């Protein structure tokens, strides 16, 4: 497997500070709940129950949503999902759309598809807005530009928006507020993801701290029809409102150490129908249910748990590999521990198959996960799958074959370990283990083998 590039020293320290701060807030929020372990178990059970009868819950959601006036679309592939959104935009006759943060839209490369169709998607989450201006993929599940310094953010806004340079986070935020407020006041198409779908009531649940989730689903433009599209994975369904309430608690505490995210919205349908005309809100609400490989994960008992993920980002915050390599090293929209599992499950490429190998399997991710996903065991299983599918480079297969031969024959093993002392002096070992050895030496092989020492002692 290709070694993952690591971040430069300075950026790594800054990243560690930022992630550490979030983890500390999480720890405080968890300490406040003596029954946290039971809460994790309940969250796990809710998600397990939802996945066990996923298609029943999806049917129930679809019926309830239809009764609310929400139109439900099914997309088997990323391409289908993008086309669905583009068709809605074309029918509406818009050339711009405001978007709130959604990992599924990153997964299906919606922005790219929309731009190719002549419709400009405008990211309105502050972090995503900066990432979009800079042309970068998200660095983290919940904090897309956590790796950038205030100076770097200031430079991006100055260059891309033509505003005077400032590195004051408050001023930078106000610049974004002004630019994006104009977009909100003008927009007739709002695109969002969904944190949960509630089967019993047909609700689309959306959380944001900034309020952009409310903006894109309220659409304050009074001129002309307004449309909301929520794009989300089929796994987001939960049976009841009570289940959603519990998971919302877990999400807020795990992702940001808060008791609840600032804005939590249950979207029930288009703006008020029976009890008087509401002045704001969408005329149509659509939900696009994306599969794109999720059924495959559901069928594999050892990967199914990965579908429980509520995208809190805590596993990235705690992961030693993520700390050193950073989000972009994964070269996938889903990064960090759970991102490695999802990427390898969704995309059958050598690059994605390599990600579960880039882990120490320390299990810190599984310990922090609010829905108790056994993340590192899923990675271990995926290593197995990669080997079975021949996704491992030939030299590695040969190396293990050789090792196995030696382990099965004592004489061969002894001869091999003596031979290694001749053929593999320290310089050669160092060369084999590059680039890890560019700044350090591997210890030389001991002069005598364990067998020889044992014999001498006896």
């Amino acid at each position: 497997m290709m070694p993952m590039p690591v971040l430069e020293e300075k950026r790594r320290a800054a990243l560690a500070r930022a992630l550490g701060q979030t983890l500390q807030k999480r720890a405080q929020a968890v300490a406040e709940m003596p029954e946290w372990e039971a809460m994790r178990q309940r969250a796990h059970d809710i998600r397990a129950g939802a996945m066990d009868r996923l298609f029943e819950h999806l049917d129930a959601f679809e019926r309830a949503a239809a009764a609310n006036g929400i139109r439900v679309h099914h997309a088997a592939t990323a391409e289908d999902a993008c086309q669905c959104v583009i068709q809605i935009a074309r029918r509406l006759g818009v050339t711009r759309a405001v978007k709130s943060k959604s990992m599924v839209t990153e997964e299906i490369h919606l922005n790219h598809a929309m731009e190719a169709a002549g419709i400009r998607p405008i990211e309105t989450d502050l972090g995503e807005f900066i990432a979009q201006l800079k042309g970068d993929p998200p660095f983290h599940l919940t904090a897309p530009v956590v790796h950038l310094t205030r100076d770097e953010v200031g430079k991006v806004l100055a260059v891309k928006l033509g505003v005077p340079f400032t590195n004051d986070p408050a001023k930078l935020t106000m610049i974004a507020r002004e630019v994006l407020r104009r977009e909100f006041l003008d927009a007739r198409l709002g695109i969002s993801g969904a944190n949960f779908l509630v089967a019993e009531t047909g609700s689309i649940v959306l959380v944001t701290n900034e309020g952009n989730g409310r903006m894109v689903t309220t659409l304050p433009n009074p001129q002309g029809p307004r449309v909301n599209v929520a794009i989300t994975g089929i796994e987001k369904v939960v049976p009841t409102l009570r289940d959603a309430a519990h998971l919302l608690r877990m999400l807020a505490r795990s992702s940001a150490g808060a008791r609840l995210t600032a804005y939590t919205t249950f979207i029930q349908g288009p703006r008020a129908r029976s009890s008087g005309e509401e002045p704001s809100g969408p005329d149509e609400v659509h939900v696009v249910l994306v599969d794109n490989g999720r059924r495959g994960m559901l069928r594999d008992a050892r990967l199914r748990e990965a579908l429980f993920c509520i995208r809190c980002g805590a596993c990235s915050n705690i992961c030693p590999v993520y700390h050193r390599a950073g989000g972009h090293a994964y070269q996938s929209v889903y990064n960090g521990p759970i991102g490695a599992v999802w990427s390898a499950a969704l995309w059958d490429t050598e690059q994605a198959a390599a990600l579960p190998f880039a882990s120490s399997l320390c299990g810190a991710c599984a310990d922090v996960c609010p829905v108790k996903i056994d993340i590192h065991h899923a990675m271990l299983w995926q290593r197995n799958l990669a080997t079975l599918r021949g996704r491992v480079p030939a030299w590695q297969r040969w190396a293990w074959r050789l090792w196995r031969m030696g382990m099965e024959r004592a004489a061969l093993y002894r001869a091999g370990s003596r031979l290694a002392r001749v053929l593999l002096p320290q310089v050669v070992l160092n060369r084999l283990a590059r680039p890890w050895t560019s700044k350090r030496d591997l210890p030389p092989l001991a002069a005598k083998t364990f067998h020889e020492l044992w014999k001498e002692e006896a």
Partner: protein
Amino acid sequence: MSELRRQFEERLGQLGVPVVLPAELEAMLTGKVFVSEHAVCKPWAARATCADPREADVTVTGCDALVAETGSVALLSAPVETRLSTLMAPLNVVVGGERQLVADMELVFEQFAGRLRPGAAAACLTFVTGPSRTTDIEKTLIFGVHGPKKLVFVFAEDGG
């Protein structure tokens, strides 16, 4: 003071939301003031200088429930407009009654079960927990990204 109210006020304090007396509110109503049609907002109706919450500097709004566990204000989308009026202005004053207090989100669902049923009237239910905020730039906490920079809470004098 009831235990629920004590907890609710403590949460608001932690979220940076001051709880002010109706009399203290006067000084905050400067610039373009929008006052919603909620009955609890009546005392300030005469102070309204702006009919469009999109253009207001200050909005005074009611709410549908208060959640003690999280310090949240619950807003149903109808019949009185609650979306723009709690979202667009830099300062949002929410007036609520002690009688609206419940322990947690689950109880709000129970209370409004009829309006959340499939095919029922509500278009959306929002829980507002503190002002609009972000930590996207170097984890620095900044208020007022898209929604209100400041949220203020007032207990209605007659108990709502």
